[in-house]
């Protein structure tokens, strides 16, 4: 349990660093670290399949997508970076304060832990749940992936009149 708490603290700090980082690349790296720590937590919660998905897709693929998107945009000049960081600092310095206040408030507020499951899958295997119990959802998932692929094809399509 102590290791879980340690990982949760590190993950929250990584998330905080992600949103407060000056450069977009550093923010992306922070997001990857957050995902990696979440993977360890998921693995410790007896969910190895979800952990593998989280590690390969969220830590790997999404980071690559972000880095490629950032590399296709124009980098800021040194003067612009300094101005943007000052502006960001002005808007984001409230966040640590809000987090500390929320943490203090949550210490006094008791989070109810008694949850009753609406549906019990008991000893079922994850593959059984995915392919038998959630068959209709799988169709939806396939449609979402196709929609995503079509969206990317449309968005990244070069115009004919463009050089």
């Amino acid at each position, binding site marked *: 349990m102590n290791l879980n708490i340690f990982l949760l603290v590190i993950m929250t700090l990584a998330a905080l660093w992600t949103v407060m980082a000056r450069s977009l690349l550093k923010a992306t790296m922070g997001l990857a670290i957050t995902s990696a720590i979440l993977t360890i937590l998921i693995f410790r919660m007896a969910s190895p399949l979800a952990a593998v998905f989280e590690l390969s897709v969220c830590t790997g693929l999404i980071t690559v997508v972000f880095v*490629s998107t950032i590399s296709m945009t124009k980098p800021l000049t040194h003067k612009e970076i300094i101005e943007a960081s000052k502006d960001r600092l002005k808007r984001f310095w409230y966040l640590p304060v809000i987090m500390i206040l929320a*943490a203090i408030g949550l210490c006094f507020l008791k989070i109810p832990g008694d949850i009753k499951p609406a549906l019990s899958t*008991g000893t079922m295997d994850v593959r059984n749940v995915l392919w038998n119990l959630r068959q209709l*959802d799988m169709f939806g998932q396939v449609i979402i992936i196709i929609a*995503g692929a079509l969206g990317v094809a449309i968005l990244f399509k070069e115009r004919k009149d463009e050089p």
Partner: protein
Amino acid sequence: MSLNLMQTFSIFGFFIILLFIVGTYCLVVTRNILRAVIALEILIKAVTLLLIVVGYITGNVALAQSLVITVIVIEVVIVVIAGGIALSVFRHNDDLDVRRLQNLKG
């Protein structure tokens, strides 16, 4: 439900709420499209952790894992589409500022 599991949920719930605060604050305050997507990612991470913890303490690990896999698939599609939109906006405005989206027709 045992006291230990209830305590586990309370501890995880505490940090999940903090993650939600981080994501929501960034989403509200940021002016950069890519940072908004990163904030959305953090919110999705909080949801993923909540699903896994609830599955663990209620004994529905298989259902929680299958739901998390669905969430991850949707997350990837969202990020890729949002990245494409951000690039299109950048080509159009030479900037990723969301305030400049108001200049669009429609």
